[in-house]
């Protein structure tokens, strides 16, 4: 074997944020022409490390070598000068610009702006690596995956030969992910070196040559992908053996709890978002909602919780205490609570809807309890106590219960949100993409919490995107496609392929159980 050449070599990279050590003396190598997976739990320092490589942070100590030359990377510009390009989790594109305009934005080329020439170059890059892109298309017309393509071409256009992709698959469908991986392999063949950050272990195993693992800011080691499997990677990442099986007990005494009948809604532009939705959620079971992103999942949950205007249909809640039926249509969240209906909702947009980013844990606990009591003043004691319980029980990493949740890592934010919703002792618990962006360990914490709620007799509605998890965690699945129910299936007996077919079949047969 020929000796490996390093595209990137980091020696002793260290970064502190205040008293927190985000990266402690990390030594990492990226070989030329290799795809390296960077693996680690939330808050293990992956993104910090990559930000130092791409010039967003500057290391407190340590040295970076690019192609065996020591370099100082003090800004993203320096990073580009060294051929390093990072594709961030959150895209930074101008909506009203075309793909071409976005790609050449910020480039200081001499002479007149030549969009045609740029478009030609973009086409050339696309053909070379197999991107599908229309350079004239405006960003606001693009799907998430197209926007990602623009971001990747942007760094290639600038001549990057070292690419960093921060959780590129988190927002993609399985098909789009396959396409991305094909492109990555083409880039690899062309001699580019790639670092990919992802939480999905099967993707790590599928796409990368080597895996490097971080844990709590420390470099744990690396392993060739061909010598690794999901279990061994998880163990290295977490530092102890974690069971990767989701425990799915049989539902105990399921009774109808929430019945959705003929639900139809329109958005503010008059587009039909849900079309005659029918299903029943039972107590003591986890009902999964599967579907391609944007098939009406958000509208469904928001309709049930009184946040979305309902055009037609009924949402009947069977109150387990009074044995009375109540129609939730026309109620807002306040009236629903006042009617004694305890519904918990973990929305998809955690910081934009479920939590107040600038407040600490205590202030966020108050979102559910602020109205309690007749006093003109808010009660801060009970929320403070609850915050402390969640802090302790769910092992939330935060300096204090008043530390703004916006500045916590993603997994901790979700623990705060899920912890608060479960603490309400709900009769119905709805979660939307509850483990999106979370690491394995936190994801399993969430699965276990949901299963525990199910065993308490709660009707759990779980909107998910990972079919493997949906099939392992849920008892039944409602499959949505284009705002319609395309099937209701038993998660124990169906398989991934069949559900995949339902996900893309508009207006399939309903109620085939």
């Amino acid at each position, binding site marked *: 074997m020929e000796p490996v050449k390093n595209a990137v070599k980091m020696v002793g990279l260290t970064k502190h*944020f*205040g008293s927190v050590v985000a990266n402690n003396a990390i030594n990492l190598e990226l070989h030329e022409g290799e795809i390296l997976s960077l693996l680690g739990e939330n808050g293990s320092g992956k993104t910090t490390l990559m930000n130092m490589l791409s010039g967003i*942070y*500057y290391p407190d100590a340590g*040295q970076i070598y690019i192609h065996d030359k*020591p*370099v*100082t990377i*003090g*800004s993203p*510009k*320096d990073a580009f*000068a060294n051929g390093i390009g990072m594709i961030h989790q959150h895209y930074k594109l101008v909506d009203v610009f075309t793909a071409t305009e976005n790609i050449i934005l910020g480039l200081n080329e001499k002479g007149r702006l030549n969009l045609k020439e740029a478009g030609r170059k973009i086409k050339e890059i696309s053909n070379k690596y197999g991107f599908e892109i229309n350079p004239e298309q405006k960003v606001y017309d693009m799907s998430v995956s197209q926007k990602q393509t623009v971001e990747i071409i942007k760094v290639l256009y600038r001549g990057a030969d070292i690419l960093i992709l921060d959780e590129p698959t988190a927002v993609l469908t399985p098909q789009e992910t396959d396409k991305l991986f094909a492109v990555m392999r083409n880039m690899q063949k062309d001699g580019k070196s790639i670092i990919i950050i992802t939480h999905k272990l099967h993707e790590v195993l599928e796409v990368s040559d080597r895996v490097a693992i971080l844990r709590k800011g420390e470099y744990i080691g690396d392993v060739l992908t061909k010598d690794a499997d999901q279990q061994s990677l998880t163990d290295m990442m977490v530092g102890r053996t974690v069971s990767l099986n989701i425990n799915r007990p049989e539902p105990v005494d399921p009774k109808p709890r929430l019945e959705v009948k003929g639900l139809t809604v329109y958005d503010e532009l008059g587009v039909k978002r849900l079309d005659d939705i029918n299903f029943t959620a039972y107590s003591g079971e986890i009902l999964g909602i599967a579907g391609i992103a944007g098939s009406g999942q958000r509208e469904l949950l928001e309709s049930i*919780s009184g*946040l979305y205007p309902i055009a037609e249909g009924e949402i009947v809640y069977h109150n387990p205490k009074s044995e009375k039926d109540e129609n939730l249509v026309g109620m*807002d*969240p*306040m009236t*629903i*609570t006042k009617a004694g209906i305890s519904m918990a*909702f973990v*929305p998809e*947009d955690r*910081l*934009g*809807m*479920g*939590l*107040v*980013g*600038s*407040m600490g844990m205590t*202030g966020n606990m*108050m*979102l*559910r309890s*602020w*109205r309690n009591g007749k*006093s*003109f*003043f*808010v009660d801060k004691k009970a929320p403070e106590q609850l915050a402390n319980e969640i802090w302790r029980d769910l092992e939330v990493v935060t300096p204090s219960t008043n530390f703004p949740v916006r500045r916590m890592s993603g997994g901790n934010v979700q623990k705060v949100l899920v912890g608060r919703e479960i603490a309400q002792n709900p009769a119905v618990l709805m979660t939307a993409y509850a483990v999106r962006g979370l690491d394995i360990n936190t994801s399993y914490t969430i699965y276990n919490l949901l299963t525990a709620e199910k065993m308490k007799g709660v009707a759990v509605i779980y909107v998910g995107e990972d079919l493997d998890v949906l099939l392992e965690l849920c008892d039944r699945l409602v499959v949505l496609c284009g705002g319609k129910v395309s099937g209701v299936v038993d998660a124990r007996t169906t398989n991934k392929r069949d559900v995949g077919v339902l996900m893309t079949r508009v207006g399939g047969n309903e109620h085939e159980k």
Partner: protein
Amino acid sequence: MKNKALFHIARRGELPWLKAWLIRGAAILLALLVCSLLMVLVTGLNPFDVYATMAYGVFGTARKTWVTFQKLAVLLGISLAVTPAFKMRFWNIGAEGQVMIGALACAAVMITLSGVITSNVVMILLMFIASLAAGALWGFLPAFFKSRWNTNETLFTLMMNYIAIQLCAFFIILWENPKGAGQIGIINAKTELGWLPSLAGQQYLIPILVVAILTVLLYVYLKYSKHGYEISVVGESERTARYAGIKVERVIVRTMVLSGAICGLVGMLLVGGTDHTLTTTLAGGRGFTAVMVSWLAKFNPIGMIFTSFLLVFLQLGAKEIASVFFLNESFADILTGVILFFIIGCEFFINYKIEFLKISKEA
């Protein structure tokens, strides 16, 4: 590599308050230093004399001190008024108009009812109600339109200022006294009906006390009440507020009514407590200065005592040096500008730190 960046700007974590105040103190010292340099270079005056004169203009005599506190009370009062709206991220820049309309309502009661009511207590009570209601109405209108039709509150409140000022101009001519004077003159000069009484022999004490109480009340309201919590959540994200069962429209309208009512109250304090007349320049731009006071104090009512004092100090001090040293008023403005520049600029160093890069030697 060429064009290497030599420093890097990074966001700070939470800075201990002591350190933050040290930075602020340093900024003020630095500002005074730059001002001194300017004075020596441009006017040849001794900076210490100038600063002493400024201080004299603010606290030099008992009379000056009372004026300072009266002006402080007015500015602080308006700043308190705009704060709940700002915390809700409702950009109310209509405080000027809300004060004016409150003042107009107060003057209207004093003038039109002077022959009807003889009791001072009843008169003042009516003035109070009228001013509060007028200010509240001026706050309600933009909020109502915002919550119903999502109109732009900044433009709306700005326009409402002009309506209020023009209404004042109209009524000043209508009630002019003496005829043809083009101004109202002192209202009820003989009977002193509707004048806020002096307390302990001090004419300005009541307005000052009212604003002091208001400061504490507003601090408690924003920090500990359910309303205050609702305001914070709505300001952060309307979607989160709806999710938590907060009626966003109601909170917006209620908060703006409060905001406007406090402005109206300040208008009444101005007409009934100090000026005893109505002019179109009664608010004198303080409705806009209040925006800065509120922001500088990061919407903390207690902090606003200091920021409004700073601005009043600069204003009165500048006036004093302009007259004592026969300086152009513009020079005083320059000094004010320099000081504010440093004070606002130092917030950058509180939120961010500059990291100088250690340029690594070739290994």
